[in-house]
């Protein structure tokens, strides 16, 4: 009981995840700045931002639905933290596991996007509503490729459980090399899921002010930012567990170091994508996702189908 509470709230639960998420936001912003030939923010910047926002006044617009407006940040935060418990991190087994948890993790990672949509919709502000509809349009574009890309390695492993998948790839490490197309597809889809450049169309601040979060301020905005930071870490962990299944058998200490290293690599790749690309328009984004990314994910599925028959 006490151990479960410790696991849920402190390590590797909420507290660890928050600090890790904020640290990864710093890594992302610093890399982004260095790649633009800037010095970039100091290490405590995400922490300062969070404390400042938490101490600010929170305004709820008169026309907004107060219950939904307050509930949505909590909802987004809870969903991403819950998803984290089903992902194998530094051992082959996650904290909680059952057959089919891969689907649950993907489902839980979709919830924050829906929370962003509902938050924008219930703000009843013009810009927030445009942002909300764009969030949903974008969801339909990247979600299917992400699903297919993550399911392809599961097909090869012949299981729907993330923990059993890592056990399988632990036994056959060379098989992970077949999933390279899926890895690239997942990276692109995650960039859309986290609403970062080139897929930051829902919160394009040069066109629609602040997008979904236009009306959010103070503590609620801090919670949303925290949810996005944690989502980045959870997505990176998922990609690390599915596509980079190495170094699980070295004990918890080395396993932890390797896990952090893998997450750092994925965050660095995402920061690189963010630096070299510019924002697309919404229809360019959907066309790109359906005509390029989805067929690539299908190809990965096909390769893994044939391989699972041959090998």
């Amino acid at each position, binding site marked *: 009981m006490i151990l479960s509470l410790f696991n849920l709230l402190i390590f590797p639960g909420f507290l660890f995840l928050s600090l890790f998420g904020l640290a990864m936001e710093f890594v992302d*912003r610093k890399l982004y700045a260095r790649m633009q030939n*800037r*010095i*970039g923010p100091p290490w405590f910047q995400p922490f*300062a931002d*969070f404390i400042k926002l938490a101490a600010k006044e*929170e305004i709820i617009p008169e026309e907004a639905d107060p219950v939904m407006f307050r509930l949505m940040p909590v909802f987004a935060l809870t969903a991403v933290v819950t998803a984290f418990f089903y992902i194998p991190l530094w051992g082959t087994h996650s904290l909680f596991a059952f057959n089919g948890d891969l689907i649950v993790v993907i489902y839980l990672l979709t919830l924050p996007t829906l929370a962003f949509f509902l938050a924008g919709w219930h703000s009843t502000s013009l810009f927030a509503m445009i942002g909300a509809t764009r969030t949903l349009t974008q969801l339909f574009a990247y979600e299917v490729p992400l699903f297919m890309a993550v399911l392809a390695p599961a097909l090869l492993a012949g299981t729907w459980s993330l923990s059993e998948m890592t056990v399988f790839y632990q036994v056959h490490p060379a098989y992970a090399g077949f999933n390279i197309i899926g890895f690239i597809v997942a990276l692109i889809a995650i960039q859309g899921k986290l609403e970062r450049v080139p897929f930051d169309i829902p919160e394009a*601040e040069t066109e629609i002010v602040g997008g979904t*979060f236009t*009306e959010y301020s103070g503590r609620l905005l801090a919670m949303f930012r925290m949810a996005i930071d944690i989502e980045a870490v959870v997505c990176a962990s998922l990609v690390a567990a599915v596509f980079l299944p190495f170094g699980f058998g070295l004990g918890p200490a080395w396993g932890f170091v390797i896990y952090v290293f893998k997450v750092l690599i994925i965050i660095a790749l995402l920061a690189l994508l963010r630096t070299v690309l510019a924002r697309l328009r919404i229809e360019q984004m959907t066309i790109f996702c359906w005509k390029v990314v989805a067929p690539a994910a299908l190809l990965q599925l096909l390769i893994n189908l044939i391989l699972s028959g041959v090998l």
Partner: protein
Amino acid sequence: MKWLQKLITWARIKSPWVIHFNTGACNACDIEIVAALTPRFDIERFGILLKGTPRHADVLLCSGPVTRQIQDRLVRIYEQMPEPKFVVAVGTCACSGGVFQGCYNVKGGIDAVLPVSAYIPGCPARPEAIIDGVVKLLSSLDPKPAATLPETTTTAKST
């Protein structure tokens, strides 16, 4: 709870998010503000980020004299910002009304309408002066260094 207050003040000084609003400037100060946001000056070093919406912002950067037409909009933008909030007047016109003082369509400087926390003179104010002004305004929140604040281009007043 003194340490908590200290922590909050520290966070406020380290993370000023600004929103830029043109109250009727000739665009020179706006160009200088935009120049201050470029990688050359890299204001993210101080934690300064430009925000599109007043709900996210802490500091309202105003440029230009307040015209009668913009007055209501300016007050509305200011009221949409959550507390604590600060107003910085960028450029001579924003500080006092400049050469437009007494014109039929001009109310005067920003302080004719809103409480101003920092004045940054210059026609237009240089990016260095704007960054200096915002940083000094925020360091005036901290009671200790405010006493020894050097008097240069900016005078910070408490609201």
